[in-house]
């Protein structure tokens, strides 16, 4: 009996540990009773070299927030793709669902492994020329988005439904058991408020697709699609530490070829370090223990699988051309007025370049006000955050979204500063607003307006109501100079359906074109 843990056990332990850290950080991405959020909840994105590279290229600056990514890249330059096999929560989850899906051997086109390099190239070149794509392919973005926008809210919904059922219809003795359990869940894993998201289904679908691809091959996503894996693979090419086959005694039995989860071992038992994620299955799986993880002095047989010169040039040229195709749509010049960005958002172009569409701002948003954008910012803007006041408003003193943004697409603002950032402007629809349209008293928007000097004020007038009687009512009006566009007025407007006071992105401070006092730009 071997008392030392096997290499595979160590790897599994590490995967479990990192997954736990990830889940704890994920649940921790919430208001914790203080204005400052504790714990680096966006740590995962800060160590992601792909995001670091893409967002730095997009803004042509070195983003200090993502500097920790250098350490990951350096470690892969020495050890190879250890991160993919030992730490990546996406990879771990893929490994976990694999046994649930059964085996369906499929023939995969031989050219497919090049896809990830093409994607990587398109993402990086596209970022440089103004087409932000990293958020759609980065594994963490897909994972965190799917969890925060769809799976976690659905999970919480299911639990809430169950305990609502027992609370409303269960007998007293049952509630003696279920209520403490519910309170415990509330204190640990459930969100404080049930959240809803506009793009819950697309986010879930994207994540689900990655899992379903496991049907075709193990780690399908990691092998053929993952651009982060591709970047780390480029680093792994140069890594001196790698797994290799001690040639002479190998009987070429082919077991390792079937065993390898990323298809890194060919029929002759040669290891391709670009694909190898150091899962160490081959170390224990080889009947003759042919495989070793060691420092290679002489260059092993290179099984490099980069793009051909033709493919490289073609991809680059497409990635340069595409952004211009995207730039000639009207929304680039006349932005959608209902597209209200969170406070601290950079100017649109820069914002799109930096935003990784991870959904952390939406998860942490205390009022469920931030939602994934659909086509309002163009196809490349899908999943970026926008404020939908009718669903939730921006809490006046809260600065959480800026604190969790991993790339600084939303600036971290101190509360005093945030309260002066204008994200939009409210305007009253007099055809619907009760004191105007019906002569009925209502001051709910004024009551909730959070600026110390209220941006919504009341003036008392005598008007005719629906019966033709003269009544005295207070009519609200907006003081443009004071309105910051938080949207609480639109949110709390008691009219059913559309609100009688609507916020648009007019006058937002992130763009230099300031509106003058008469409302003209």
């Amino acid at each position, binding site marked *: 009996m071997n008392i030392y843990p096997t290499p595979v056990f160590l790897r599994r332990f590490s995967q479990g540990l990192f997954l736990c850290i990830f889940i704890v950080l994920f649940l921790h991405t919430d208001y914790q009773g203080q204005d400052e959020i504790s714990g680096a909840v966006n740590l995962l994105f800060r160590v992601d070299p792909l995001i670091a590279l893409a967002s730095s290229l997009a803004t042509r600056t070195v983003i200090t927030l993502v500097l920790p990514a250098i350490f990951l890249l350096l470690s892969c330059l020495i050890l190879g793709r250890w991160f993919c096999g030992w730490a990546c929560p996406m990879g771990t989850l893929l490994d976990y669902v694999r046994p649930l899906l059964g085996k369906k051997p499929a023939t995969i086109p031989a050219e497919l492994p090049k896809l990830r390099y093409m994607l990587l190239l398109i993402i990086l070149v596209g970022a440089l020329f103004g087409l932000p794509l990293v958020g759609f392919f980065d594994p963490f973005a897909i994972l965190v988005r799917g969890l925060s926008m769809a799976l976690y809210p659905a999970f919480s919904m299911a639990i809430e439904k169950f305990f609502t059922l027992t609370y409303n219809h269960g007998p007293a003795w049952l509630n003696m058991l279920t209520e403490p359990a519910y309170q415990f869940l509330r204190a640990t894993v459930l969100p404080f408020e049930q959240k809803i998201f506009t793009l819950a289904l697309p986010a879930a679908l994207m994540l689900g697709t990655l899992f379903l691809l496991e049907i075709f091959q193990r780690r399908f996503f990691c092998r053929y699609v993952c651009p982060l894996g591709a970047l780390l693979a480029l680093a792994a090419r140069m890594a001196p530490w790698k797994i290799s086959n001690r040639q002479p005694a190998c009987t070429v039995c082919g077991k390792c070829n079937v065993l390898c989860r990323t298809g890194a071992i060919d029929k002759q038992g040669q290891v391709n370090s670009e694909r190898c994620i150091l899962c160490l299955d081959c170390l224990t799986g080889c009947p003759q223990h042919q495989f070793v993880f060691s420092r290679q002095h002489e260059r092993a047989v290179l099984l490099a699988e980069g793009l051909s010169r033709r493919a490289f040039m073609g991809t680059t040229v497409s990635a340069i051309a595409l952004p211009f195709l995207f730039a000639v749509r009207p929304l680039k010049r006349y932005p959608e007025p209902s597209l209200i960005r969170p406070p601290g958002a950079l100017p649109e172009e820069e914002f799109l370049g930096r935003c990784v569409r991870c959904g952390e701002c939406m998860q942490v948003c205390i009022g469920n006000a931030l939602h994934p954008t659909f086509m309002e910012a163009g196809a490349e803007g899908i999943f970026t955050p926008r404020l939908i006041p009718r669903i939730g408003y921006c809490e006046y003193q809260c600065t959480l979204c800026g604190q969790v943004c991993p790339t600084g697409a939303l600036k971290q603002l101190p509360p005093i500063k945030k309260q002066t950032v204008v994200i939009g402007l409210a305007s009253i629809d007099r055809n619907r607003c009760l004191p105007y349209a019906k002569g009925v008293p*209502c*001051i709910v928007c004024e009551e909730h307006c959070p600026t110390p000097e209220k941006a919504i004020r009341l003036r008392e007038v005598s008007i005719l109501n629906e019966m033709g009687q003269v009544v005295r009512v207070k009519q609200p009006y907006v003081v443009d100079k004071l309105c910051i566009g938080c949207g609480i007025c639109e949110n709390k407007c008691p009219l059913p359906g559309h609100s009688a006071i609507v916020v648009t992105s007019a006058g937002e401070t992130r763009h230099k074109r300031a509106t003058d006092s008469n409302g003209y730009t």
Partner: protein
Amino acid sequence: MERRRFLHDVTYWSLSCFLLLHWPFPTLTTSAQAQTPQSGMALSKVGIGKDKDYRKLVRQVIALIGGMGAFVKPGARVVIKPNMSFDRPPEMGATTHPLVVRTLAEMALEAGASQVRIFDRTCNEARRCYHNSGILPAIQGMDNRKVRCDYIDRRKFVTVPIPEGRVLKGWDIYRDALEADCYINVPVAKQHGLAGLSLSLKNNMGILGGNRGQLHRKLDQNLADLATIIRPTLNVVDATRMLLRNGPQGGSLRDVQTNDTILASSDPVAVDACATMLFGRSPDEIGATVAAADMGLGIMRLNRINRIERP
């Protein structure tokens, strides 16, 4: 499985589950109206005091109207309903002062309360309001298992008919508030755009569910109608700081006047009338006070209120 067996099993299991879930067949006896209505003719007592030390002040004012023992019976389940609607620190005068709430909780415990629950359905995000109003930290600081600051639980709203309501015929009301043996209403005195002033009657809105904005259509009468159902055992109006303008949220110290005053009474109308005077206004100007007095829910005429002021 054969059909007969299937039907037999289904009947058997559903019947047993049904019986199991409904055991022990409770009879609905809890009444929504816990307190006896006050007679319109009697003199209402209102205690008023002024002091810099809020702990001492609360104790003195409650003593003026008979002490906490008159309201909290031993073993009683007490609910304290402060105003913590908005995400504002105590000095802004938008929320009840944490020391007032804490002292009341301590006094309820001293009077023998078996449990004290503190909650409010906030306008801003609940956790921010609970924390930043200072009330949650103050209550946690008591470190007593009988006292708890609870967040609102959506499931606990029950639709309550309001038979005596002139406009409002029913609304969702928080169950814990209705079922309490002693309900202590602790509003903060502040200006409000529509109600004129937000006092005891307006504070009742903090235990309502649903779209509360719709109540503003006939706010004054709605508040009076609600007061037929929500009958606090004790009303303590916190006028230690008074928000004079830009209410009910405020946000600027310029709008806040420090007054160091507390008023208490079992009659919400009388205490509101006296609190209105502190703003230099007449009770007749506050629609809700007038509407409630008109329905016989309390006394509004100042000459029929027994004002007991601390010497």
